[in-house]
């Protein structure tokens, strides 16, 4: 899976769950501020991402501070998948 494909899929998943509706999810925009993704929604989203990509997030990453944007989630997933291939 390419980085762009991961980004696209994650943005789609955020779009479906975001309490503040938006046509597009920008990779660099704050999830809480712009899309209403609070810690509750974030954890639900991360559980869904774990299932979709068959990965597990580190406990310490489960915060709005760590995953403040769609881009940071996509980077994390990309690195996890790349590490699994190696």
């Amino acid at each position, binding site marked *: 899976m390419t980085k762009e494909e991961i980004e696209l899929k994650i943005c789609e998943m955020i779009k479906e769950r975001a309490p503040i509706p938006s046509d597009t999810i920008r990779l660099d925009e704050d999830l809480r501020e712009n899309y*209403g993704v*609070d*810690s*509750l929604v*974030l*954890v*639900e989203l*991360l*559980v869904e991402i*774990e299932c979709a990509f068959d990965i597990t997030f580190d*406990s*310490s990453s*489960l*915060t709005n501070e760590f995953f403040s944007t769609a881009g940071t989630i996509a980077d994390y997933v990309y690195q996890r998948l790349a590490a699994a291939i190696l």
Partner: protein
Amino acid sequence: MSAPYEVGAAKSKRSIPDVPRYFVPHVGDCFANAYGAVAKHMGLNPELVLADYLCFMYDEQTEYIGINFLGRYSTSVEFTEEELNSSMEFAYLPPTAIYLEQNKPGLLPEYKDRLQIRLLIQDDPAIAYRRTKELLDAGRPVIAVVDLHGVSYHRAFKREHGIHAVVLTGYDEENQIYELFDKYKLSSSDFDGTLPMEEIMQARSALCLQNNPITGPFSRPVRNLWMELEVGEEFRVTEERIRAIIRQSSLRMKGLQPVHGRVCGLERLEAFRQSLLDKKEIVFDELEVYRFRTYYNRSMKGLSRQRKRFQAFIQEASALISIPGDVCAELNEELEASAMRWDIAANLSLKLGIARKPAILDELCEQLRFIREAETKVVGYLDRCAE
């Protein structure tokens, strides 16, 4: 339900200017947030006068946890003196009382060195209306409690019930509106404007129906609950009281000062951790899912905020009492670490409730172990601060 005017009385209005729209991300709950706004309006520093003791409580039987009281589900808005006074050094809260017009509340002389916070109820909306008006006319903002189900600006409107505190700052009888604000952003509240009196009066006298797998269905009548804050004539932020918060926190965390007859602190934290490890073999039914996804998630978020709040208190206190610089910095660091770990634990609890994978319990307990380490260090630094 319309505003109950006296026949022939002139319609009046009043607006209190410049009531601080107080909110800090580490505030305890909507009540504390409203107290903060009114305390600031009275010229007080909420970070000091509303500071609560560092503590942790856990009860094996009910599996409830808490800070200075167990986070249980209340079926009423009536609280005893003991229930209301386990958290704050600077404040005194008399037991919830029924407001009577012929016997208006005043300052309690025996607590003249405290910020007095009165919780008042009155089932007659006309009497509650008149007292609200009287307080606003006297330039005193009113902390009024509403059922979120009935306030149109909130996302819970007509969807979920929940008791919530707002600050009324004015009224206009001609236009039948209240001026109010609600800045408790932790529950997506960010309102500052006017609402019809009828809407507020109905929300203040609602039944507030609740249902969850821990308690089953119950109602919690709001009964027009409101709070009145006053400072006693001898109220002072003194070095002695600041040190008392620090000393009391240390005693509670070391299990040397029971709260509501219960030992609290680090030993309870370990007991809680062990109890979670024992859950690895259980079936995650609806009750357990709710416990982790909602109850523990919220409670642990509250613990995370309290550690941040205590950090803010120490910061303010260090300007007023002498604390060695290195102790202050170390204390700050460990409280920060504890707050972060409680936040992660809260999210792991939520994750466990969603994914229902018992393996997540190991991660959760690992976080609680880190918390215990950090808070053990905190207690050591508190003892040095109290010297």
